[in-house]
């Protein structure tokens, strides 16, 4: 075998969790959340040398696991906020779904490998045309000048914009509702009432407008603003009602509270 795994190298958090759960699959009643979480955290401990990005992903899952475990350990969970409880179960279902997906592709990968191994036992003929026919082949260099060749070489040697951090998932404009809310709670108290058009006058693009709108809704939900619209497609008016409980703290949101990145 060209590769042989001698130490546990888990390619990702789901990989590890899947491994920990399914290795005890023989008797599912032996599987205990508690021991899985412990084992997971024990593995995390070994990951200290791993780069930050990887470790972060593992930690994220660890946090969810620990929360699940903590919830399980609580004797009576009647007094626990329903919404929180629900959110936790949602997390759990999400985790379950991702484990499921991870397992599916792991097995698919196994099948691909078997197919490759089987196909790899045959070697293709690639000999190409016999010499006497080669002259008949179209000349691939038609239209290629020495200068084009030079440009092609330069192009090939130009470092690709590639070794960058993977930003594919980041929209060019990052607009967060949290930031927009913070802006509005500075802007609105002074003005009292503003139209939505005024609020978005400086918004450069549709995405920013949407984010501002979501911010207004968020404030409305919290009872800090009131909104009125005089009929369909009418100009939306936003009133500042103020934050009764707290002396107008301009940064009312904890980072994990409502800040979402919108990618459009």
């Amino acid at each position, binding site marked *: *075998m*060209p*590769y042989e795994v001698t*130490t*546990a*190298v888990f*390619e*990702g958090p789901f*990989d590890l969790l*899947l*491994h*920990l*759960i*399914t*290795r*005890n*699959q023989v008797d*599912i*009643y032996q*599987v*205990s*959340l508690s*021991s*899985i979480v*412990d*084992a997971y955290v024990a593995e995390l401990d070994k990951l200290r040398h791993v780069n930050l990005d990887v470790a972060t*992903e593992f930690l994220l899952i660890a946090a969810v696991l620990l929360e699940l475990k903590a919830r*399980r350990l609580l004797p009576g969970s009647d007094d626990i906020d329903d919404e929180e409880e629900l959110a936790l179960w949602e997390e759990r279902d999400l985790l*379950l779904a*991702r484990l*499921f997906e*991870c*397992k*599916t592709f*792991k*097995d*698919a*990968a*196994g099948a*691909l*490998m078997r*197919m490759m191994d089987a*196909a790899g*036992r*045959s*070697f*293709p*003929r*690639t*000999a*190409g045309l016999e010499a006497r*026919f080669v002259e008949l082949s179209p000349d691939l260099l038609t239209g290629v000048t020495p200068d084009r060749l030079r440009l092609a070489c330069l192009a090939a040697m130009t470092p690709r914009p590639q070794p960058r951090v*993977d930003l*594919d*998932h*980041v*929209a*060019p404009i990052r607009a967060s509702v949290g930031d927009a809310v913070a802006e509005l709670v500075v802007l609105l108290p002074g003005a009292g009432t503003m139209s939505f058009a005024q609020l978005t006058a400086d918004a450069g693009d549709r*995405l920013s407008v949407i984010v501002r709108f979501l911010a207004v809704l968020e404030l409305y939900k919290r009872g800090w603003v009131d909104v009125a619209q005089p009929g369909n497609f009418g100009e939306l008016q936003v009133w500042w009602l103020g934050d009764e409980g707290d002396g107008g703290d301009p940064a009312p949101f904890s980072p994990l509270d409502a800040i979402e990145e919108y*990618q459009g």
Partner: protein
Amino acid sequence: MASEVERAIEAIVMVAEEPIPPHLLAQILEVTPARVEEVCRQLAEGYAGEDRGFQLVRVAGGYRFQSHPDLAGYVERFALEGQATRLSPAALETLALVAYKQPVSRAQVAEVRGVSVDSVMRTLQHRGYISEVGRDPGPGQAVLYGTTARFLEKLGLDSLDQLPALAQFVPGPEVMEALDAGLRHGAGRPEPGGPAWVADDGEADAEADGEP
């Protein structure tokens, strides 16, 4: 005696570098693609029946000659150069994701894998299994990846349709139950003697993951 079409197909496939699509053979031979397919099937069966050391196969959308898998030992002794090392488990799983979800962006792949896949994707591209096939029309215009003709060749497939259905890898209810239990049970069930396997930090067993 062998027909002209039969012989011409043998001659042309013999001098090709890549699998030759049947429509190209049909065009050169001035017969229908269906006839080409039929003759190729007969030829392939003939070689198999005569126990030849080579095969005529349909792969990546065309026909090619290749050595019989039985004789891999001999051919490997001759052609050491062409031997690529096997893909790592991580690379294989990433490749499976691209194969089944294509066209797909790196970020989408990373999301399922739970880790950054930049270097693995580069390796796969380097080896010619995947390539850029377009750009996401949405904001960000992420590069989208798909598998290549070479991927099909490496798997011995004629087309992507021949990939085994993903549904067949979806874990059965017992796995679902185990996963579910793993994230649910255990409140009042301390394991007798403690989780002995926690100390066992040795093998990363892909096999133990419930392969058939």
